[in-house]
């Protein structure tokens, strides 16, 4: 068993290292980090704009006015989260290269806008009119997510390449330094944007018409279709658990690959939720964060803490329960993972891998069957306590909180026998140790 563990760790460590230290995945993760405060701000207002029962109480008209008044909060943030991700990626990439990072963010967003068709279709009494001079917000939401990410990568790389080439305009001596510096960003930016313009023109001659269409149909749609399916989700869940079993931060490693997909799926749901349409996706960012992780942290260890309080006889587990409970409520569970311990503990391996998979299946099918509403696209901060987070994530539905309660029960039942064995072991070890110390104690007295 030890040998097997060692081999597996030797396989996983380099993967974790590669994924976490990859320049683009790091920029992507940090880019999402830039967007997160805006996403959460918008989410709060989606929650407020959709509080349950109030519409019946204040009347339809007042309710509509209220919703309209709060609308801009999420329309300017959550619905166009791609905008912040693009700026974040461009900024962070150039920061990583030690360049002037603000230009990285600006050149990324400008490149993206060059590729974006600045028209929208407007339906007036059955005839469709094309309206120019607009930036459609939907391209900055779910639809443009992948194009935005790729554009930010390429734009920042090109910009950096041209800066490093040092293609600056040489000013004659006597020109103030500040003046020549103001030109130093000009050439790299101009060249970068020109390339994107050419790309846009080339694509207008293809059947795809726009780069947007090209990326969406060829990359985003297949990837999100794959990512929204149950097999890919189970694989992601298992990978996260497996990394954690070796004490490596599973989410930070796996999410850097899955986040763009999960966020795109999330945004599709948000758009449908706000339009009052049926939600298209079950698997979203919140499916993972709220129903698979957000019940005490990775592996849903709130149920483990509960188990410790209910069956723990050993001092070790009791102490751990006291230590882990306050943090566990807010989904921080390193004390449990390293303290129980879960890492490298053969007894913990089965419940650790099995419970999240079963929970994922139960969550998926209860949503597919319509018993529990699908996640509404609201991003709930991951430190939000369980039951409340489920309520918020499903667009203020009690069923979301109840599902989390059921999930806690499932995890608890799966862990029960294994926790019992661990507790018995610790308990008998402690008894043995107590006996020895009391024996030696007696001898000393004698």
């Amino acid at each position: 068993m030890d040998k097997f563990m060692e081999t597996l760790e030797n396989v996983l460590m380099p993967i974790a290292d590669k994924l976490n230290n990859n320049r683009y995945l790091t920029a992507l993760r940090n880019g999402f980090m830039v967007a997160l405060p805006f996403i959460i701000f918008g989410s709060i207002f989606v929650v407020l704009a959709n509080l349950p029962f109030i519409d019946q109480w204040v009347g339809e008209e007042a309710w509509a006015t209220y919703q309209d008044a709060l609308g801009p909060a999420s329309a300017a943030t959550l619905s166009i989260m791609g905008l912040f991700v693009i700026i974040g990626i461009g900024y962070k990439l150039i920061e990583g290269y030690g360049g002037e990072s603000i230009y990285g963010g600006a050149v990324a967003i400008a490149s993206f806008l060059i590729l974006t068709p600045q028209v929208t279709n407007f339906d007036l009494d059955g005839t469709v009119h094309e309206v120019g001079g607009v930036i459609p917000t939907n391209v900055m939401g779910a639809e443009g997510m992948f194009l935005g990410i790729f554009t930010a990568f390429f734009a920042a790389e090109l910009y950096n390449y041209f800066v490093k080439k040092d293609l600056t305009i040489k000013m004659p001596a006597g020109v103030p330094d500040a003046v020549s510096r103001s030109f130093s960003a000009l050439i790299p930016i101009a060249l970068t944007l020109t390339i994107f313009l050419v790309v846009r023109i080339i694509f207008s001659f293809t059947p795809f018409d726009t780069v947007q269409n090209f990326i969406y149909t060829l990359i985003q749609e297949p990837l999100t279709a794959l990512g929204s399916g149950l097999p890919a989700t189970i694989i992601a869940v298992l990978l996260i658990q497996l990394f954690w079993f070796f004490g490596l931060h599973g989410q930070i490693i796996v999410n850097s690959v899955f986040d763009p997909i999960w966020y795109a799926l999330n945004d599709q749901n948000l758009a449908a939720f706000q339009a009052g349409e049926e939600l298209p996706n079950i698997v979203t960012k919140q499916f993972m964060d709220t129903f698979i992780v957000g019940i005490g942290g990775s592996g849903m260890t709130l149920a483990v803490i509960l188990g410790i309080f209910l069956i723990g006889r050993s001092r070790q587990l009791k102490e751990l329960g006291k230590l882990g409970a306050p943090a566990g409520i807010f989904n921080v569970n390193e004390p449990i993972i390293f303290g129980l311990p879960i890492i490298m503990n053969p007894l913990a391996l089965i419940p650790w891998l099995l419970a999240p998979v079963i929970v994922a299946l139960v969550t998926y099918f209860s949503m597919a069957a319509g018993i529990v509403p699908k996640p509404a696209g609201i991003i709930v901060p991951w430190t939000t306590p369980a039951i409340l987070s489920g309520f918020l994530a499903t667009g203020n539905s009690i069923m979301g909180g109840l599902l989390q309660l059921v999930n806690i029960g499932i995890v608890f039942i799966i862990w029960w026998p294994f926790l019992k064995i661990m507790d018995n072991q610790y308990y008998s070890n402690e008894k043995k140790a107590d006996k020895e110390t009391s024996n030696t104690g007696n001898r000393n007295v004698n």
Partner: protein
Amino acid sequence: MKRILLACSAGMSTSLLVSKMKEAAQARGVDVEIWAVAQDKAPKDMEKADVLLIGPQMRFMKKKFSKTAEEVGIPLDVIDPMAYGRVDGEAVLNKALELIGD
């Protein structure tokens, strides 16, 4: 004054440890400044620190941090998983002081 920096994925679980380490330091009368950050902030904060301790779940970041640590000239190490799980402020504080030396 010894300045000890802890880093993990979001600076959450290490901040648990920070308060325990501060208690341990106070009890022993050691003058320290201890704080926790998310991993992406760590390189910047290393300039203000005398030592960097990495949460064991982020131990794959050690190689990357080592470069910055070398430039800034501070020691770094991964926190022992057992001490991390027990939130053993005393043990981690000892480790940090040992790394700083003197």
